[in-house]
């Protein structure tokens, strides 16, 4: 943990130094909390050898 003293009031991303590559939607935590529904976003291809993994992360479109 580092602590840097600076007198800056506004917090914005500096586009000169940072070009975001994955700028879409809010970050989602895909935990398997029972009933939380977040993992239900995926439309897994049913089960495969490790079904739970793919249910977690499959997203319903082909790249």
């Amino acid at each position, binding site marked *: 943990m580092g602590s840097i003293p600076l007198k800056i009031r506004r917090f914005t991303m500096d586009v000169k130094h940072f070009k975001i590559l994955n700028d879409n939607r809010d970050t989602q935590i895909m935990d398997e909390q*029972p009933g939380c529904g977040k993992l239900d976003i995926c439309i*897994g291809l049913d089960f495969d050898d490790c079904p739970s993994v793919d249910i977690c992360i499959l997203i319903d479109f082909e790249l």
Partner: protein
Amino acid sequence: MKKNINFNNFKIIEPNILLHIPTGKVFNVSKVVKELIIRCQKNVSKVNKKFLKNKENTEIGKIINSLYKLEIEGKKISGNITKEELRLRGISLLVSQRCNFKCVYCYAGGGTYGYKYNLDMKFDIAKKGIEFLLKNRNRTLKILRINFFGGEPLLNFSLIKNIVKYCKNIERNLNIRFKFSLTTNGSIFNQEIINFLKNYDFFIEISLDGPPEIHNLYRKTNEGKNTYELVKNNIYLLCKEGLNNRISLRATFNLGKYDLSKIISHLRCFNVRRVYVDKIGPFPGINIKLTPINKTLFKNTIDKIFNKLKNKKHLEVTLKSLPDNWINLVKMIHFRYLKNQFCSAGKSYLAVSSTGNIYPCHRFVGQNEWRLGSVDGGKIDLSKLSAFYFLVNGNIVCNKCWAKYYCGGGCPYINWVRNNDPCKPDSENCVFYRYLLERLIQLYSLISDDLKKEWNKRRGPLIVK
């Protein structure tokens, strides 16, 4: 004013990529940012004295400002607190713990999982398994999933037929639908089986380890015969019947020993819906330790795949040549989906053995200490599941790892085999996972904005089923 920035929350990836771990945001950054973060990670106080004073304060100020913004954003993102409670979305039924193959790396002891009797599941056990699923299901879901697993499940095809018939009968009254899948070695298909799988819209996963010279080394029949031709012909047969889109192929590869790109391209030639690759073990009795030569070979083969991709003009087309489990990681990077657990084993998914014993997942079957209970009576020992509810950032080892939100802490079974603890990651696995992820992030940084926009359109709104 003081801004607390945890510089360990940032990962610099060559040539100039920055990953902010808590938010999953990926940036191309300037040399100044890169240098600042690397220096801060080494020693923040030195940075204050030397680096910062040598630069224009306003410029550095803007960068620190940006990093601080990310840190604030990251603090707002958190998963839910988990507790041991089953809300099942599906189960695996081990309908046959017999197998006609004797694969060298089989974690299931040739399919029996150490069981000696009752290797074929009876209808009564299967029915109780379905009842257990229904009783403990996540009631917000309209679809429940049943995977037929083994051994070789098609050795007990008559039971599969009866279970599916039973499920179809009860789903009408319950306002739910069952979806079925089958994990098979691909050796037993005939017209009756194919018609059945088509009629009930099965998803079929077949193990194929690559071209014959690789597949035949590991996957032989009980009599020691090669199996490649048999499996290949069956895949062609299924494809001829229009099942391409319902098939996934999975190769288990011996890390560093064979050219992985050759395995991947071989599987892609079948033109099926999904292709997965995964490395062997470690499993009980197959504690494969990698030699330094194999480690180098693995890295070289990964580099070869990615260097080839980078040089292609149409990245979107060549991306498709990667295995789907790697493509999934690209999707996670793009959509900023972070995992704080590896999988849903013991939470929304369980496995039922041929005798009706319940385990956190199919890999744990036969391990007494992980037997949770039985479908007889349907009571299970939830206290045994606590290890499956840990979060990756609550884990001392994983919390320091920059790749934790993509791997989720690793497979609990492999962790347990390697370290006698489902929560303690297999360090060898971690090294390769990070290596792969780094390459995938580099690849992602080359994807055009237009293609990403296209992905966003096709992705559509989040769908809650």
